[in-house]
């Protein structure tokens, strides 16, 4: 199709044409960045976590009497273990995404301790049965044996007195890249050393704590014997039993010691709470994108309808001298395609500009190139859909209009 006449016509309507281009450019720029942010946040929400997320219930006990703590905790463990449907129980200091974190810097040699940027790793302390209760996935080595649990107490600096540790794959890769981590030592401070006996698949920290997504899988596990500060109880069962276990577990522990405060929740609740803000941001972004596209489409419909109305006479003449309905349709569709293309090109430049600004001022990464063609196609489609109605109306203009006075 010859596009020369379209340019000639557009030159006569510079301002409305420029407005359509501007509108599409703005929509393209905002859409690219908004969709990019949606993608990033959905990635955050679905970050991997190698525990049995769908089978875990967390029952937290606060306010245990320090004098009877160790015996009480053993009684709680036995009571929870005896509930029908429970396959494993353990006490832990904290759970992934629970927002209550114990962290420490670890070094690979005593001379490194607090002298250079040693990685900050989250500590999980587990009583016997912990790896089974959490559903940790062992990749290398072994978990702890009975003696290692029994001999490990909590020191005055809140570190286990045992000497073994299991680390996640990410920690192993950070501390000993390209080496076998089994048998290696880590130092916490100048006096506490731990030997790596196992490596597990990546487990999340209790919170991203400053390090952000890059350090989110830096966790390590220590054995511990029952102890006042270890007061979260992990109860594992089949997914369908979880709600009952939360309800009954809380009741049973409250009945055992009326002076403590017991709270139960499934791990799915913990994950849901941790990412609640991120999830609402995603919905907000989706809503804005949809409404923005609708507004843009209505703008195109409005301007094109006006155009069609203004050119009824010309359309009539074209029809009278032999143009088919399809020709008229094509004319308006091609015109819209040209305007959209101009808008998309400007929009891509704008999108990159906004992305650069966001990269400077927020924790954002570079916009991947494939977002550009995808949103270009989205806006082309949107433009074609929006122009369909007015173009059909134009195609229905009868040739006889040409013979009438405007």
């Amino acid at each position: 199709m010859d596009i020369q006449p379209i340019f000639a016509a557009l030159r006569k309507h510079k301002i409305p044409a420029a407005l359509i281009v501007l509108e599409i450019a703005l929509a393209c720029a905002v859409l690219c960045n908004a969709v990019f942010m949606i993608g990033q946040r959905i990635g955050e929400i679905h970050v991997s976590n190698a525990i049995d997320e769908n089978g875990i219930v967390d029952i937290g006990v606060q306010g245990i009497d320090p004098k009877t703590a160790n015996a009480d905790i053993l009684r709680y463990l036995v009571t929870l273990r005896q509930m029908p449907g429970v396959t494993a129980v353990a006490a832990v200091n904290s759970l992934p995404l629970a927002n209550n974190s114990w962290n420490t810097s670890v070094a690979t040699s005593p001379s490194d301790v607090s002298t250079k940027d040693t990685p900050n790793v989250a500590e999980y302390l587990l009583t016997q049965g912990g790896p089974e209760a959490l559903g940790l996935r062992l990749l290398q080595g072994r978990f702890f044996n009975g003696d290692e649990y029994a001999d490990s107490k909590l020191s005055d600096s809140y570190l286990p007195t045992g000497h073994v540790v299991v680390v996640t794959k990410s920690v192993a890769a950070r501390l000993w890249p390209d080496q076998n981590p089994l048998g290696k030592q880590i130092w916490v401070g100048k006096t506490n050393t731990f030997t790596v006996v196992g490596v597990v698949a990546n487990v999340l920290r209790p919170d991203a704590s400053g390090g952000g997504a890059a350090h989110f899988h830096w966790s390590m596990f220590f054995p511990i014997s029952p102890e006042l500060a270890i007061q979260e109880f992990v109860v594992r069962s089949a997914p369908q039993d979880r709600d009952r276990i939360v309800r009954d577990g809380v009741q049973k522990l409250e009945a055992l010691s009326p002076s403590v405060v017991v709270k139960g929740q499934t791990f799915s609740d913990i994950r849901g709470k941790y990412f609640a803000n991120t999830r609402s941001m995603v919905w907000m972004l989706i809503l804005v994108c949809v409404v923005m596209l609708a507004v843009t489409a209505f703008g195109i419909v409005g301007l094109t309808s006006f155009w069609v109305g203004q050119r009824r006479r010309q359309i009539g003449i074209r029809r009278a001298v032999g143009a088919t309905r399809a020709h008229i349709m094509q004319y308006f569709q091609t015109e819209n395609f040209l305007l959209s293309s101009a808008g998309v090109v400007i929009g891509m430049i704008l999108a990159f500009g906004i992305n650069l600004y966001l990269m400077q001022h927020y924790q954002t990464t570079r916009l991947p190139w494939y977002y550009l063609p995808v949103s270009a196609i989205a806006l082309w489609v949107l433009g074609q859909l929006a122009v369909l109605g007015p173009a059909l109306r134009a195609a229905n203009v009868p040739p006889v209009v040409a013979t009438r006075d405007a």
Partner: protein
Amino acid sequence: MMFGYYLDLALRSFKRNRVLTALMVLALGLGIGASITTLTVLKLLSGDPLPQKSARIFAPELDPLTAASTTPAEKLFQRWGNLMTYTDAMSLLHAHKGERQAVMALASSKVTPQVPGRHPFFSDGVVTTSDFFSMFDASFQYGSGWSAEDDENRAHVVVIAGFLNDKLFGGANSVGRILRVNDHDYRIAGVLKSWAPQPRFYAVSLGGHGYGNGDAVFLPLQSALADKVNTQTVNCFDADVDINHLETAPCAWVSLWVELAHASDAPAYKTFLANYVHQQIELGRLHHPEVELLDLMGYLAQQQVVPDDVRMQTGLAFGFLLICVVNTVGLLLAKCLRRSREIGVRRALGATRAAVFAQFMVESGMVGIAGGVLGLIFAELGLWAIRHQPAEYASLAHLDVSMFVATFVIALIASLVAGLLPAWRACVVAPAPQLKSV
């Protein structure tokens, strides 16, 4: 005088193009609704928690890390704020260099009601020193705070929030009664009126949530320490520590706030702070000379209290408003170009360009007001949706008078800006050619 006539003309024009007018108002309303919703949240989150005196409230910051540490002080201050060791905080407190000063930490506290059958529960608690209440303008419904002597004597007194008093004592004057907190008996010294600064600035470096209905229990720091209280955040910078003796441990876990008589006293206090650190470096206790003294709002900016997501949302909403304005420009232009003939007639009958311009500006202003009303409805809807979100500030998201006014100001500005181009195109229409074709 002509204004009424222009209003009438505008109404007639709206009636003629109902769909187009509805589209314009809807687009503008959506843009304004989104902007006002996000602005309200931004304003809520970046508000001044103590508007009367925030310029005189200061957060002293120092670097307690070991000599081996290579963390730049600036980075540490961003992360820890005014968090410091107990030793430093108490030395600075006892120096009394400010008008008032208080040391504090957060401690979720177990409260046991003395009513049979009621379960104990945990409440947000603050462990602090006597000046806390007067410095932060927390006023009392009953009783008062405790004294500096109570601090030193480790007196077992407690101040509770009004809402806790309502819950435990049905709102009656409970001063003098005994409350069991963390399994120890405390005598109630005072009951606060509702006091919940937003953001909860003193909790920012202490690891607490930033917004909400405020704390329930306030205990004297030294008394709570004697009872082995567990505080929310303990950052130890040397692994070989005894956490059971936090008073002497190399751990930052309390924060210090200072009220000065005048904002201009800040340099003098900063000098005092720097001298203190120098003295401690000579004694070998501290190793890094950097100090910082920020006023309350400066501190909130340093700690980046407003989440990035909220600022991005606001930016996005204004981007969206811009798209809506461009859209309105287009639709207004389409409408006005369609009326070239009517304009021609008006011009031929003696209307000046200014009069035509005014007429079209009145018309777009009316679109703006209608868009503002619709925007207000959308904003209320948006805020309603935000109140049902899980964020901790959610329940506080309400439209206030200033945002109500802002809605219409933004709507009018947006529509008048959108109307400029169409009105200019309208007023340059030459009367003659339009009349010829009639």
